[in-house]
């Protein structure tokens, strides 16, 4: 090969790099490992983590321990899905394209919206992308109103994304655990591009989403609802009460926790805003023989065509995670989703009853909740966590690790999330440990 190229050695191929810029030493990296050595190394590192073998996960805060059917892993590990890339060549990518088209369709059914894109990075950036989209739609760039009950990390991302703009992010505090409608109305005005509501909110509580959406509409702002997709097996879909843009963290839909990513950003909206959407869209069309087929559609919104005028800078998205969600939702079907939602909800309420029966533990907020709730402890919250750990349970996160404006009461509080994986026996054991 060197002869064909016309060089004597490989190094001659690097003559484009001026000598002065060449690295004249080997990189200082750990030594190479064979597969056997790597396997042993990774096992020893994994053993330094406390995994699901020794703790039952009741942690929440936007990432949840829902069950993942084996089929999800089997399908998504197919090399043809796993090692393909962005389906620019439609003729050689119909598998992924149809699967993403199905993803968009299922997300529309789930949220009650008209159009879904083919994924964003995760739930937090999806909120920021929705905020930018609302500014494009309303042509209002002055203000975004968010509730204090929005996931604090999502709010932090919004602050990061908006720092350089003359756009004020107004936080309506939620000291009672959900928004006060009058306080929200007072914050909305004719400069407001969007009202962002998380439903269920960061504390697990249900907001008055219907009324909040009406308030946004009244002031000409878009209603952005960030939801837990599992909850939509039980509570009203944002599309049913008139939300304009729905975003979500899709991790609950068959994606492993893996310490926080990759997860799945979901964004769906009304048809009128279709051309203002960020991210990829898959469309159905026909080929030259008239056969139905699928293509990347409306690419003129995207960075590789529109450059600085694109609706977003996103290129690589979360295709494989969208595939996981598609397979997951298909496996669950209509009834399965209902059962997961109902089972999580019932078990969470059972857990709340058992735990608040313990001296010193009470609900932080007296608000309806779905599968997650906040408790306050009159003693040292870290002691409570320690007791749970000793009994084999992880609970949290604690509220004190977040910036939660207007939530002064939260220093001895934490979240508990309950999914369909939990059993009555486990909850009883936890209650016994915390009560002891």
């Amino acid at each position, binding site marked *: 090969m060197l002869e064909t190229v016309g060089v004597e050695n490989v190094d001659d191929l690097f003559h484009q790099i001026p000598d002065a810029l060449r690295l004249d030493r080997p990189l200082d990296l750990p030594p190479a490992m064979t597969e056997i050595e790597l396997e042993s190394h990774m096992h020893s590192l994994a053993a*330094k983590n406390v995994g699901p073998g020794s703790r039952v996960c009741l942690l929440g805060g936007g990432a949840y321990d829902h069950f993942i059917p084996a*089929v999800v892993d089997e399908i998504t590990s197919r090399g043809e899905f796993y090692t393909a890339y962005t389906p620019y060549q439609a003729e050689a990518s*119909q598998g992924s394209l149809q699967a993403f088209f199905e993803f968009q369709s299922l997300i529309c059914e789930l949220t009650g919206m008209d159009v879904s894109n083919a994924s964003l990075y995760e739930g937090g950036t999806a909120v920021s992308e929705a905020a930018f989209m609302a500014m494009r739609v309303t042509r209002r760039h002055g203000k975004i109103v968010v509730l204090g009950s929005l996931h604090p990390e999502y709010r932090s991302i919004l602050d990061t994304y908006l720092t350089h703009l003359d756009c004020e992010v107004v936080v309506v505090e939620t000291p009672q655990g959900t928004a006060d409608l009058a306080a929200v109305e007072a914050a909305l005005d004719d400069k407001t591009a969007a009202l962002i509501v998380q439903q269920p909110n960061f504390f697990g509580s249900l907001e008055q989403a219907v009324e909040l959406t009406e308030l946004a509409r009244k002031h000409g702002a878009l209603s952005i609802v960030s939801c837990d997709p599992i909850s939509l097996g039980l509570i009203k879909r944002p599309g049913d009460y008139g939300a304009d843009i729905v975003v979500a963290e899709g991790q609950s839909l068959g994606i492993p926790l893996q310490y926080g990513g990759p997860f799945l950003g979901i964004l769906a909206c009304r048809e009128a805003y279709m051309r203002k959407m960020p991210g990829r869209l898959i469309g159905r069309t*026909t080929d030259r023989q008239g056969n139905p087929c699928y293509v990347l559609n409306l690419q003129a919104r995207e960075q590789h065509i529109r450059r600085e005028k694109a609706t977003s800078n996103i290129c690589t998205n979360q295709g494989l995670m969208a595939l996981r969600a598609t397979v997951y939702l298909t496996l669950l079907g209509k009834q399965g989703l209902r059962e997961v939602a109902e089972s999580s909800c019932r078990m969470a309420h059972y857990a709340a009853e058992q735990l608040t029966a313990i001296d010193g533990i009470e609900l932080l907020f007296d608000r309806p909740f779905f599968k997650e709730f906040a408790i306050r402890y009159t003693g040292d919250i870290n002691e409570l966590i320690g007791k749970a750990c000793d009994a084999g349970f992880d609970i949290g996160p604690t509220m004190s690790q977040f910036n939660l404006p207007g939530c002064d009461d939260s220093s001895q509080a934490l979240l508990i999330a309950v999914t369909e994986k939990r059993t009555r026996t486990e909850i009883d054991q936890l209650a016994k440990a915390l009560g002891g």
Partner: protein
Amino acid sequence: MRNTLATRSLFELSKPGRRAAIFPKSDVPSRPLDELLPANQLATDLPTLPELAEPDVVRHFVNLSTLNMSVDTHFYPLGSCTMKYNPKRHERLCSLPGIVDLHPYQSENDIQGMLQILFELQESLAEISGLPAVSLQPAAGAQGELAALLVAAAYFRERGENRTKVIFPSSAHGTNPASAALAGFDCVQLKGTSSGLVDLDDLQAHLDDQTAVFMITNPNTLGLFEQDIAKISDMLHDAGGLVYVDGANMNAILGKTRPGDFGGDMMHYNVHKTFTGPHGAGGPGAGPIAVRDFLADYLPGPIVSRENDGAGEANYRLTTPAKSIGRVRSFFGNIGILLRGYCYLRTLGADGLREVSEDAVLNANYLKVLLKDVLPTPHGERCMHEFVASAQTLHKEHGISAMDIAKRLLDYGYHAPTVYFPLVVPEAMMIEPTETESKETLDAFVETLHKIANEDAAFLHDAPHSTAISRPDEVQAARKPVLRMTVET
């Protein structure tokens, strides 16, 4: 061959009452739902999800998968995307329960193994880039660009400098201007040059006290190393600006030169490209950024730091830099992809990594030379890890376009190269073979392209002829967008 029954739409396959996943009956006291939740919050109808039995779900998706080309099944020389083989060993290791099932809010003490991996990855990425401070947060390359530009903006803001311009060459990836606009900068694009390299005079003409950042991909999107990069960096630094290196093409220079050594102040990696995260038909990626010391305090957090506990044991902690721009995503980052990058680096070590670039560059040059009579490369005598050939002559003389060749390649069992990018090359075909392809594969690919060049143009306009579908009608798709199936269809 397509299984037409199994690949019908999910709603066509749906039969009321069919089930795949079954869940245990709840064993807690069964109270009416409206005692648990306010009646006005409860859904009146369930979302209309399809109802299928498990074997039908499996058959549907497995059959769909067979309609894809992928690295596991085909040569995939998609320029700029580094479609190399993804080692299977990563899959089992990154799926260990002590890794894949960790919750992002577990306490630091309970995830010391995970934090150690991430810390070591930060260290390795710092060494490979020559830029000492690393944040693993960004979810993809484009988000890395945005994060780094916000770091630059915060740095200038603190210095009281009002720098509004981001400059980039005409051959830049679309994400560069899109990220710059999102970060609030004005975009300035340089002219293209006949050499394919940055025009220093044009650059100089745009440099002033408004210049914030010059974004450069090196090697650039033509597969050429910007030989004047040291001078370019000096020019930027003299003007008070910063140099951003788009790391999309790192596969060409691992262990050979480092962005930090050629004047870069900030860069992103595409871990899914250079360090083999599976591309997943569009993602996920991971786009860590590395910066110089004076920018470290502005990085997005959290970042992993190492302390010694006094007894000689390392203790890993999450920290947020003092003047951090804040978060760019929730939780830590795209861990699954970062871990695969870690496994890859631990497999290869320094020598292996250098050989990656040597073999990638050798493979690209080999293809370039063997294709020069049929698909000549207008820019550069030699290339780095990829090259941009032009079908202009074939197009003028025989009516065969880059698109025709791309589509016909699919018939022969090759994924097409990137076509019509960068825009500076007419009838562009951007070919990146990567280091994991054998000489036999490259030879067969060359032979195929020669064969195609001699095929009838009209026949090629109708290619592909053997794929699941023929060319789609994209005009119709855009004019009357159908973006979802409905239950009725």
